[in-house]
């Protein structure tokens, strides 16, 4: 039997447009999207695995023959679907700013130093249990032009394919208790009931003595649509 994937109600999803995030103004479509039934093209999707990554891609702190500046951290967790099933052998791509909040990118030119030993790119494939782990440095906050004195909270960009076109997800992982959340429209564009799921958890137990702090973050992709239980007038499961 072919899988069918859950459709998330709009109120549980990040809207494409958000007034506080100015760049959405000329880019987010103005028309309501048309419902696309899930057929073969949508229930299949890119199968991208081990050949896309090397072991060195999971450690962002050792690039160009030296150590990156900043607070060394481990970011780890599981990729699950909303039925709680692990998503194994799935490509996870990440990118981030360096410890000073600067991206190694031609259009990022605010006056914070680049780090010759940090390029900000990581890739791993989840294991049999859907687990992933990166070693990196904690990214810095940085200013941007959205509004007066606008600063992005520290975050790491994540991109996942899952196992079907319907499961594709690009998002950002945040760090707990960031004082910049309140003024950040990108953080606040997420539904209030969902935004805590974009925030990682500090994990002392997984922190490595004399080495690195650990942050745990599980990522949940859309699961499969299942027929609800029928109930009769007494509320009994039929």
């Amino acid at each position, binding site marked *: 039997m072919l899988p069918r994937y*859950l459709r998330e109600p709009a109120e549980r*999803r*990040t809207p*494409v447009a*958000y007034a506080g*995030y100015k*760049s*959405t103004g*000329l880019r*987010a*479509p103005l028309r309501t*999207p*048309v*419902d*696309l039934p899930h057929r*073969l*093209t*949508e229930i*299949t*999707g*890119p*199968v*991208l695995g081990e050949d896309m990554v090397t072991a060195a891609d999971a450690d962002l702190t050792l690039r160009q023959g030296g150590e990156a500046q900043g607070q060394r951290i481990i970011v780890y967790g599981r990729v*699950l*679907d*909303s*039925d709680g099933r692990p998503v194994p052998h799935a490509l996870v791509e*990440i*990118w981030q700013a360096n410890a000073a909040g600067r991206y*190694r*990118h031609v259009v990022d030119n605010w006056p914070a130093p680049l780090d010759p030993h940090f390029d900000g*790119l*990581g890739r791993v494939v989840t294991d049999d249990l859907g687990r992933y782990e990166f070693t990196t440095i904690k990214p810095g906050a940085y200013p941007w032009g959205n509004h007066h004195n606008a600063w992005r909270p520290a975050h790491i*960009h994540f*991109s996942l394919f899952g*196992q079907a*076109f*319907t499961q*594709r*997800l690009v*998002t*950002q992982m945040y760090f707990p208790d960031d004082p910049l959340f309140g003024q950040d429209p*990108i953080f606040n*564009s*997420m539904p209030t009931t*969902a*935004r805590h*799921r974009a*925030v*990682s958890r500090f994990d002392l137990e997984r922190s490595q003595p004399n080495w690195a702090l650990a942050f*745990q973050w599980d990522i*949940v*992709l*859309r*699961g499969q649509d*299942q027929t*609800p*239980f029928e*109930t009769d007038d007494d*509320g009994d499961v039929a």
Partner: protein
Amino acid sequence: MSADRLPPQVLAADESNDRRQGTPRRGTGFLTEPFRLGTTPSSTVGPYLAIGLTWPDGPDVVAEGTPGAIWLRGRVFDGNGDLVPDGMIETWQADPDGRFAHPDDPRGAVTTPGFRGVGRSHTVPGGEYAVRTLKPGRVPDGEGGLQAPHVDVSVFARGLLDRLVTRIYFADEAAANAEDAVLRSLPDDASRATLIAQPSADGYVLDIHLQGCTAKGMDETVFFAV
């Protein structure tokens, strides 16, 4: 915090029949739907996506030199009719036999050697995307018919808080397009036209308009909710 559970939706209790009003009623604990984890909300790729999402062979759905290879090209425009120079598109499609490089295709794996089904292209420079591929075959529609040849497309960019999904169809498949369930579900020919690529010197061309721009005579592309 990490994966947590959505509150279960419990059937509203109708206590009018209860022997003792206000006491917990048999049946109120049943779930109306399976217990689920809440999904992780999406966010924008931002302006620096090229750091993390560049593949050296991104545009190669098939390798250079593959017989029958074509280029799918187009530009991405915003609501001012200006090019979007910092976006990215991804394509996903069947091979010329209409099969997918995926284990959930019930008819078996793709028959075209080297065909991976996926392409990725940044819109730099000049706002143009380009993927080298094979024209897809027709794919079953799950209701006994066939879909017209098509490519599923995801669009990512700064200023989009979730990916956009659209499709590419082919102008020289008029008969197949006329019976395609998705195209038929659209309200008019103008909407359909935003999804139909035109033949070009080395393949097909279709521009993507994130918003319409009446001053420049541009219609908003039809986007889909999946």
